[in-house]
């Protein structure tokens, strides 16, 4: 219990340190004193630009998107009672990215305010709803993950079609960035556009957390202890849809962070699905901030995509959990 008490403060501290590090590190050297001055709004114009227009917004975007994916992953895992459920694996991110791409490249995003996050959320909700609809009809989570693979492939195919139709190479490059996930060139305005939706989703999920513990007993027994299972499902679908959609609108489709963070947090909180939520959000925010720092300081001509780094770390862990579960059962 005492260990658990230090988990959340520890993670908050970690995020703070990582955000400072993100402001310090980069291609332009910026000593701590100048960085601090710029952060407080008293630095030279050049430093101010680097901190406030480039490094901080990008780090914050990584943190917020990571937190959204982490809490969505933890909540979906609780709902589906499986540690392999995650917005990326279940096709939620892919569908969301597809809808966002359509909004972006057919000009809705420019014409209507909030069209981009709304489209991303619509995509995320569509996929989450399909998953939640299929879940009670199949007892097997493998089937469910295959449904997710189906949604991903379908979204991928439509995305490929859009690429074929891309009017010019620049649009094509933008689409690729979107699919792979990146927080490069994000501004505080982009953040402000997505944050309300991510916040709303997180509030819904935190409100539904008690039911996630009850679901550990199975749906029948959860109903037996007094959980309205249908309402619980709607809350989690909406919450995960809003949070994931917001994250995709901000950073594109970043997979696997939603698996890694809850997996690491679980032993610390006694595997209680309710107590996993908030630390998962914090840890996965921290992971993405660190991953984004890595992306920026790894030397090379072209920058690695954040989603690629996340998958390089996350996919092996996914496979490891899957194999371990297989041998345990």
């Amino acid at each position: 219990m005492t260990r658990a008490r230090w988990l959340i403060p520890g993670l908050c501290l970690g995020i703070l340190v990582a955000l400072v590090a993100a402001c310090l590190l980069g291609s332009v050297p910026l000593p701590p004193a100048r960085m601090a001055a710029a952060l407080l709004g008293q630095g030279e114009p050049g430093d101010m630009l680097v901190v406030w227009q480039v490094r901080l917004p990008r780090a914050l975007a990584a943190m917020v998107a990571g937190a959204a994916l982490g809490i969505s992953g933890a909540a979906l895992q609780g709902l589906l009672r499986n540690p392999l459920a995650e917005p990326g694996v279940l096709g939620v991110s892919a569908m969301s990215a597809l809808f966002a791409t359509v909004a972006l490249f057919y000009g809705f995003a420019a014409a209507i305010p909030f069209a981009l996050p709304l489209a991303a959320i619509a995509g995320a909700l569509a996929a989450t709803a399909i998953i939640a609809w299929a879940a009670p009809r199949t007892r097997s989570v493998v089937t469910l993950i295959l449904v997710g693979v189906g949604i991903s492939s379908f979204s991928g195919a439509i995305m490929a079609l859009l690429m074929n139709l891309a009017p010019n190479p620049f649009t094509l490059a933008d689409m690729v960035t979107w699919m792979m996930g990146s927080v490069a060139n994000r501004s505080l305005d982009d953040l402000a556009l997505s944050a309300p939706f991510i916040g709303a989703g997180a509030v819904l999920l935190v409100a539904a957390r008690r039911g996630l513990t009850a679901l550990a007993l199975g749906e029948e027994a959860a109903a037996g202890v007094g959980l309205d299972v249908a309402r619980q499902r709607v809350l989690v679908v909406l919450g995960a849809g809003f949070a994931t959609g917001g994250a995709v609108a901000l950073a594109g489709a970043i997979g696997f962070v939603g698996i890694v963070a809850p997996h690491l947090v679980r032993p610390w909180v006694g595997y209680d699905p309710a107590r996993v939520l908030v630390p998962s959000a914090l840890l996965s925010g921290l992971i993405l901030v660190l991953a984004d720092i890595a992306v920026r300081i790894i030397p090379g001509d072209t920058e690695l995509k954040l989603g690629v780094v996340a998958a390089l770390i996350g996919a092996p862990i996914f496979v490891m959990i899957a194999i371990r579960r297989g041998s345990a059962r």
Partner: protein
Amino acid sequence: MSEAGLLVEAASLSIKRAVLLDRASLNLRPGELVVLLGPNGAGKTSLLRVALGLARPDIGTALLDGADPATMTAGQRARLVTYLPQMRDLAWPIRVRDVVALGRFAFGAAPARLADADQLAVAHALAACDLGDLADRATDTLSGGELARVHIARALASQAPLIVADEPVASLDPRHQHQVMRLIRSFVNRGGGALVVLHDLDLAALYADRLVWMNEGRTLVGGSVAETMTPHWIEAVYGIEASVTRTNGATRVLVGR
């Protein structure tokens, strides 16, 4: 006037043309232990689900404390009756104490947030089921017998006047079977009502106040062990020949004559 206990009257239920229940009836009052007997696929679980309001019968009525349980919220229902379904495995290796605390869910409690009354109920339930030493163990490290006891403790923690348990002793060794049945029996002796599905006729004869015999969606007969634990009803329900002996008040069933 509200009738304490649960009551199902002439309930029929079919899903996709398969008849699960055919005018089945059942009642349970506080202070009695009713055992529901019947072969696999007889519709026992369906009958429990109807009684609990988890399924609504096509025709017939279900009443829980005099009201239709299907119109109650899950929380209202859970405060009147605790349901222990067949599946005992948990999705996560959460702590014993936290599983038992889930019995307090209908009172707005969560394992991370227990009011004084909740803590007290959990502590009592853990003690009653002799789980004090296991309280902080993860559930995946428990034996089947221990896990069955954890679920009984969860039911006791809810302090609901009724317990409905679907095969609570399935796949347990004799010692643990009796342990679980004794816990349910002492709950009934304290004034609770329990409806238990069993497959072991000797165990049923030993602990039940009343038996309900079920086959092909119908409740054929209900009554005391002395009245209904007979070769006639055993053959009618299970399709097997059996002899029943009674010595010193103990009923023993020998299958296959």
